[in-house]
């Protein structure tokens, strides 16, 4: 059992998180339920930018929470719990892109006929593809990039994160993040030109 140190400088929200984490580490699952209730909305919001399809999104949120539970003893209370769990959510989203890139069936399903129809519908005003068609369209376009580039641009444009935050979340250096961002945007530009999207 890992005992986390209590810091006096942290705010009330974090203090409650700390208490809940400590209770969970002692084996109280109901304490973790409270953490799930508290952060599932934020985690859903972050992962929605990676995967707007509800069924997959639900799986990703669940995966994030289970990962958080298993890594709970690695959280350091010097940083807010929210940042920590958000990083896990981003990693889960990144893993989702990697799995999609590795799975040829998934790519064929998602980018084959569906991609054509989505890109065709790009210029249509009335697109009833689903409730979240804009986010989905962005992801269909980004699917042509590598998982790293796709994650980076998802965070940069859909999550509106700064390069500093992206570097911190992805555990890359800032200069590496800047270079990768520049290259990824260049690739995206070529991809958009190819699909005649300005």
């Amino acid at each position, binding site marked *: 059992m890992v005992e986390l140190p209590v810091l006096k400088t942290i705010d009330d929200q974090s203090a409650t998180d700390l208490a809940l984490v400590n209770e969970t580490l002692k084996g109280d699952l109901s304490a973790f339920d409270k953490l799930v209730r508290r952060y599932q909305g934020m985690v859903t919001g972050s992962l929605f930018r990676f995967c707007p399809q509800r069924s997959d999104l639900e799986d990703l949120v669940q995966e994030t929470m*289970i990962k958080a539970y298993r890594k709970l003893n690695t959280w350091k209370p010097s940083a807010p719990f929210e940042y920590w769990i958000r990083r896990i959510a981003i990693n889960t989203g990144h893993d989702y892109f990697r799995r999609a890139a590795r799975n040829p069936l998934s790519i064929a399903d998602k980018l084959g006929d569906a991609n054509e129809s989505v890109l065709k519908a790009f210029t249509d005003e009335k697109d009833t593809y689903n409730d979240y068609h804009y986010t989905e*369209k962005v992801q269909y376009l980004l699917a042509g990039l590598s998982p790293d580039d796709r994650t980076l641009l998802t965070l940069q444009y859909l999550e509106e994160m700064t390069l500093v935050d992206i570097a911190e979340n992805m555990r890359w250096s800032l200069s590496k993040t800047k270079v990768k961002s520049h290259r990824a*945007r260049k690739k995206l530009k070529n991809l958009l030109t190819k699909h005649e999207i*300005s």
Partner: protein
Amino acid sequence: MKSPKSNNPNSWSDLVTASHREIAPEIDVLHKVRAALIQGERESNAVDWTEAILALFKIRSVQIASATGVACIILLSVISFMIPSADADEDPVIAFITNGDWSVFL
């Protein structure tokens, strides 16, 4: 996105702006997470048992005892097949086990 950018309503930047307006659905994974964690704990307990049994076989004396037992079974099986018997009553292994009759092996 700074590039590509245009005033075209169907541009990349407009698409990104429109996607910002989309709000994620409300998802409640509480029960599923709880069920997965309980299931995970059960599985880890099962793994613990398997590991305990495997650990047992890492002990030298248990290995020797197991190997001796298996060797005896194989030896007796081979002997019972090697010595022909007219009927089941004359099977040397059965005769040895039931009567302690060594002579059948000689």
